[in-house]
């Protein structure tokens, strides 16, 4: 699975996710990536893209929950990401990337590593795999 989240200079957020799904999956199986609110979500507050164990991401409505805890609990972006990865995945394994309309970027995962890269306008740039 691959994904990208962006907030542009006007504060507009967007998210996109694409995948081949699971190796050896049954034909006709649908995972989290095409499900809005599970693998992908964007609103005026943030943009989120998820990857990992699709069935756990769907059950946890992971992407929407990042936006929801920002909206209803007033959490900041990284706090929201940490909360959702810690509390919404039950025994599942997944990771996600997110941006906020104020130009922040965040990610979180509870499995072995996640291929990710992030950058902000003030010059920050990071590409990583492990913790």
């Amino acid at each position, binding site marked *: *699975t*691959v*994904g*990208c*989240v*962006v*907030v*542009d200079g*006007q*504060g*507009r*957020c*967007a*998210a*996109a*996710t*694409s*995948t*081949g799904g*699971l*190796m*050896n*999956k*049954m*034909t*006709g199986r*649908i995972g989290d*990536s*095409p*499900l*809005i609110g599970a693998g*992908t979500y*964007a*609103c*005026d507050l943030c*943009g989120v*893209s998820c*990857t990992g*164990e*699709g069935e756990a991401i769907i059950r946890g409505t992971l992407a929407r929950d990042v936006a929801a805890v920002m909206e209803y609990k007033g959490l900041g972006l990284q706090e929201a990401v940490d909360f959702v990865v810690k509390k919404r995945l039950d025994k*599942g*394994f997944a990771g996600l990337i997110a*941006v*906020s309309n*104020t*130009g*922040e970027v965040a990610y979180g*995962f509870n*499995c*072995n*590593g*996640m*291929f*990710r*890269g*992030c950058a*902000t*306008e003030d010059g920050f740039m990071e*590409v990583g*795999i492990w913790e």
Partner: protein
Amino acid sequence: MGGWAIAVHGGAGVDPNLPLERQEAAKQLLTRCLNLGIAALRGSLPAIDVVELVVRELETDPFFNSGRGSALTENGTVEMEASIMDGEGRRCGAVSGVTTVKNPISLARLVMDKSPHSYLAFSGAEEFAKKQGVELVDNSYFITEDNVGMLKLAKEANTILFDYRIPLETTCGGAMESPIVMNGLPISVYAPE
């Protein structure tokens, strides 16, 4: 108002014994995609266009599990899915079960922009793709040698791999010794996305 920001991912769950050269290749691809997005943002492209542009690049490169290089079904074929969402107005588009669309994310974008729906799947999505004139290729375009080998290993291990790939032969032994279990299976049957 903050400035722009961008993040990309290539999948979660990485075999701890992933060879360094593959780690390096992954980082180079992620860096290339970040720079593509940064250049577009500096050119004032809207966020929705930037996410589509970057995911297209990731779909076209066979390294990660999407587009070319997608994981294979139990039948050794490729069935892809994608979704896109614009925070401005919360517009969205998604596709599932596409087998000939070169860039599924762009079809998802067309579902959002050019159809009255937010999700099209399987034959309906393929019909829509033909009508919209997006680039179509044979399913074999998406299948890589690497993945044919990994499907074989997955079948031998009689498992479905969560966005992971069987470690390369060279690393398998090392991974086999690691006591780590994920989703109830030894980490050795997983490999990085």
